[in-house]
């Protein structure tokens, strides 16, 4: 059936089954490919978006569960002060290797900084342990979050 969802401030109408994961609506229906598919089971965090500011795994979030909530994706996270500071820190500290997981890492980090502007190492572990990076950029992710928190 038709669903209208608000993504990055714009309303989009899509005609898909109610149980279609938001991830595939973003990627395949709307062509917004910044949000990545990694596991399909909320185990890796590559698909993280914000729903009303809360970091959410879009691969297990069905389209019918979103309602009027505001969805924010990596394509627009730079419009928020936290997202912008994190993107700068990510580039300053050369966090990125293959880059595939980094959309999700940044989305989780942006939600963390919104809730906890000055995170401790334990806060970072808590917020970021759901995001897998096979290139092993974790050490730089931690440093970049701290740098962005000081920005």
């Amino acid at each position: 059936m038709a669903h209208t969802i608000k993504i990055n401030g714009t309303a989009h109408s899509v005609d898909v089954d109610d149980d279609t994961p938001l991830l595939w609506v973003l990627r395949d229906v709307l062509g917004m490919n910044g949000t990545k598919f990694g596991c399909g089971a909320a185990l890796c965090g590559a698909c993280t978006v914000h729903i009303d500011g809360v970091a959410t795994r879009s691969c297990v979030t069905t389209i019918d569960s979103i309602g009027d909530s505001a969805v924010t994706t990596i394509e627009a996270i730079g419009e928020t002060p936290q997202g912008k500071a994190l993107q700068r820190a990510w580039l300053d500290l050369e966090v990125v290797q293959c880059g595939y997981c980094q959309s999700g890492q940044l989305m989780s980090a942006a939600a963390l900084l919104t809730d906890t502007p000055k995170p401790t190492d334990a806060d970072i572990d808590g917020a970021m342990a759901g995001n897998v990076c096979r290139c092993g950029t974790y050490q730089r992710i931690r440093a970049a979050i701290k740098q962005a928190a000081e920005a």
Partner: protein
Amino acid sequence: MNTIDLNVPILGQNKTSRRAFLQGGGLLLGFAMTGMGSKTVFAATAAQVTEAEVIAPFEPNAFIRIDPKGVVTLVMPMAEMGQGVYTSMAMLLAEELEVDLDQVLLQHAPANDALYANPILQSQTTGASTTIRAFWTPLRQAGAVARNLLITAAAKKWNVDPATCQARKGVVSDASGSLHLGYGELAEEAAKLPVPAADSVALKDPKDFTLIGTRAKRLDTSIKVDGRAEFGIDIKVPGMKVAAIAISPVFGGKPKTVDDAAALAVKGVHQVVRTDEAVAVIADHTGAAKKGLAAAAIQWDDGPNATVSSADLIKQLDEASRQPGAVARNEGDVEKALAGAAQRIDAIYQLPFLAHATMEPMNCTVHVQKDSCDIWVGTQVPTLAQAAASKLTNLPIEKVKVHNRLLGGGFGRRLETDGIVHAVKVAKQVDGPVKVVWSREEDIQHDMYRPYYYDRLSAGLDADGKPVAWTHRVSGSSIIARYIPPLFKDGLDFDAVEGAAEPPYALPNIHVDYVRVEPAGIPTAFWRGVGPTHNIFVVESFMDELAHAAKQDPVAYRKALLGHNPRALGVLNLAAEKSGWGTKMPEGHGRGVSVQFAFGTYIAQVAEVEVAADGSVKVNRVVCAVDCGLVVNPDTIEAQMQGGTIFGLTAVLHGAITLKDGRVEQGNFDTYLPMRIDEVPVVETHMIKSADAPGGIGEVATAAVSAAVTNAIFAATGKRVRTLPIDPGVLKKEA
């Protein structure tokens, strides 16, 4: 920061802004395609990786394109999968071409062995940590040839001796410094000049390098922090459908029954396709495709491998490893030396099958038409992909186009074309382009795995504890025999024994052999660190056993055997010094060391671990001392030390693929565990300054770290880990 200052002059005299020519028309499709997220702070940052194939009048060789507007495009022969080569290859070209890195665009090379073969691997293959070693000279030569031609063109215009002119930042100047011409303005003239032979041009003395050796910012990252980067999985082609695929859960099986009607009843599903070993559901979006695949309720004919289990495969290896194998090295008289030794040590080491689990799951987009086949994919082997598709479609090779993309991780997985083959088989039955995306479960259960290795070692020590005999028999699958058959000679797989046949130590009597054992029902392939990842664990662990048997400090023991090997000794000394080797550790903590020469690079690592009463292991710190010859980009070395270490630690702590009833038992990140941010150590990198030719770096730390960790566990607990991954049950403190 890795942004482009849009106000810098472009490579012409007229000071037209870069923005002006970027906006100036359809020349660079890549920019048009990546212009999303217009309100973000990075929207103004032009993507430096272009998907379009650039054509320009000045193309002095396969790697450089300069158009009249001054756009410099560097064609990247090797694939970018995170290891940083798009930046380091660009640095080699730009150093000699005399352009700044923010003045260049990078283009993925098309599939073409004649133009882009890796000189070491002799095909267009990104692997074995060879990119910089292979292209160190050719890319600098390519840059120098182009620069010479541009200078010659300017000198001709000015009617002066080219030797009096110089090039900098994309501009040629005359001796007086009053005449300037940008590369764009010279492109058409330079294109008319005869191109000198690559080896006829003088290369810069390394002391004059202005770019090589600097911490240049990566060129592929601004598009990776705002969702613009296009990986293989992100391809969008007009009219494209998507497919979810289920491959027989037992290798060698095939689909028996498929409920097509149920699949087709799912909204958005268009077609159900069968291949010999798989079923694919074609739909408008992946949500529908997956739902359709589940509804198809496929029943499988498991075929001949239905009862394969890990236990049986290990038993087979154990038995095979009792017989002599193909000799990789034989020096002195090992039997005699063993017989006469004061002390004899024997050990068996085992390493599991491993999946690659790249973050970007396997995927491939294919459009098969009557007289063409287009493939969009991130691959380490574009020409092998092209050949495989040509065979399947019966199209001539030139009718198969491979559009390579950024890879969301490679680690050797994308050295294989199985994913491309599956996709072409599906696409042949589909009208229009189709993107085949594997689920994570398919990705892990239909990987091609790092072989299970079963190694037997014996050593003899003299009365002073010095090794007088060393034997090492490697048993396992041969990847080389399948992948590069001509290089599998007399039963010997050089990769399977790499790191075993030539330990860096003085070992007077040494015998190393290899027994090929091909396990049924599980395909094997290269994995990050290839042969050394397995062998360095074994050799460095066993060396630690010898030090212990000799009642000597593991670092001191190794040093005594490295007198002839100054670079190995150099990294060992540095790692020991930086790690505080020898200082006291708390109860339950330990330090372990490993030394390695592989990929043209020397490394020593010291790991610090903590073993809890329940046997759980935490790695707190890894100190890396590395001598990789001349460093192209020190930040990349550090990044690869960090990332390579984490990749190796993931395997040593968690990594195992096991088989039961012919099926891989692991399926997703809850059963094939990746290391996460809350368990990773601090990784420190210390580099030795060197003028030697550059070594490889992408796999070095992965290969070296396992033994450093297990040796540290021994120091902490007195328990020797000879089977990976580490089993906390074995390390548990007895009550």
